């Protein structure tokens, strides 16, 4: 959305009461919970949106937001989500995927079957592409299964960037020169675009972790990467997200969380699996709930 202001105007003053109303709204729509300690972050983004929509006051902006005029809810969510990551981040979990998890998953399926992997939230695609790259380079059975990788995020702007697959040097810092040479093409402005074949191998979709109806569209995943998002949720939303993710997994399927997150503290539904490379959580095999 463009900035409809004619020129720079002084920022709109937002009262603590207004911030609270706004946070309640954001929480209801996304499950993202901000405390007073994030006041600066909230103010800054709210001011940006108020200015971009040409609203004269918080109240005017809030009315526009609640009416979802010009898809303002989507623009707002896009401005509040954090989209900074890089390829092969927390690669011990990728190693765990090929050294431990896929052996168990593929062991239950005949060759030629589908293996479904979900990266949520996928942000601008680094994690989803990392999964595909890692499989190509490290899983000897990569051609024996029909691997479906889905990347989902609540932020449509991030999804668009993911589908384009253009990255700067920082996002590629963990990849070898050889990998970059084989799977990326340099762009004229000094960035790198990921191989078209890799872009074709991943489906990017919009999904909201705490929207049960939305999540019901996603089923039968063998493996889910859901890293570093539950930390933004409060206890109730975290539990709701965990229950939704549970329903998205096949019985026996696994979920990888971020290094500072523990499913044991969120929900009793999952079993803890300690593999040499990582601790992951499993939907129990016998549970067909």
């Amino acid at each position, binding site marked *: 959305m463009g900035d409809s202001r004619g020129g720079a105007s002084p920022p709109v003053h937002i009262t603590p009461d207004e911030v609270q109303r706004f946070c309640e709204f954001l929480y209801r729509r996304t499950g993202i919970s901000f405390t007073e300690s994030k006041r600066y972050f909230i103010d800054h983004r709210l001011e940006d949106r108020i200015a971009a929509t040409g609203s004269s006051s918080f109240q005017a902006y809030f009315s526009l937001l609640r009416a979802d005029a010009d898809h303002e809810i989507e623009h707002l969510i896009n401005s509040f989500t954090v989209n900074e990551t890089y390829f092969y981040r927390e690669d011990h979990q990728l190693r765990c995927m090929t050294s431990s998890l896929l052996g168990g998953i593929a062991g239950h399926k005949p060759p030629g079957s589908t293996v479904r992997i979900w990266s949520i939230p996928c942000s601008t695609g680094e994690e989803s592409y990392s999964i595909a790259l890692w499989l*190509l380079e490290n899983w000897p059975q990569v051609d024996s299964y029909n691997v479906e990788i889905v990347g989902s995020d609540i932020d449509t702007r991030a999804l668009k960037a993911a589908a384009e697959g253009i990255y700067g040097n920082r996002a590629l810092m963990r990849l070898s020169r050889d990998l970059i040479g084989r799977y990326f093409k340099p762009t004229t402005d000094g960035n790198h675009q990921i191989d078209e074949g890799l872009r074709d191998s991943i489906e990017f979709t919009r999904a909201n972790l705490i929207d049960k109806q939305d999540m019901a569209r996603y089923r039968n995943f063998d493996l889910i990467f859901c890293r570093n998002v539950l930390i933004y949720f409060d206890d109730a939303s975290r539990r709701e997200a965990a229950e939704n993710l549970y329903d998205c997994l096949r019985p026996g399927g696994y979920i990888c969380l971020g290094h500072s997150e523990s499913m044991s503290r969120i929900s009793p539904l999952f079993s803890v699996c300690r593999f040499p490379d990582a601790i992951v959580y499993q939907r129990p095999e016998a549970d067909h709930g």
Partner: protein
Amino acid sequence: MVDNGAAKTRVLVVDDSSLVRLYYRSALEKAGFEVEQAINGIEAIERVLSQPFDLVIVDINMPRMDGFTFLRSLRCRAADVATLPALVISTESEMQDIAEARASGANFYLVKPVAEADLVRHVSVLTGAAR
């Protein structure tokens, strides 16, 4: 290797999985082959009729047109296309499937998974690119 200043040896990879196509393409390009791709038998027929290839690698189970049908269709074309060497790479490991592939016109059959080195070795032999 296959790139000795002359035109590169051209391989068409036919598989409905983009990740599998990418895996074979990456291995073969690293070894100096030039690789084109098709996602099913119909697209593969269009490719071989419009461009010259030295080898086609084809999967069996694909939507729209499977590998057996593709091979039979290939073998009844004009001579330069009909004689194109074909390597089948499939998860199907039953003797019956291998026999049907042979009868349909496959020159060689490999069961997935295929390691990079084995892929390159077989492709080199079938295209005459091996040293």
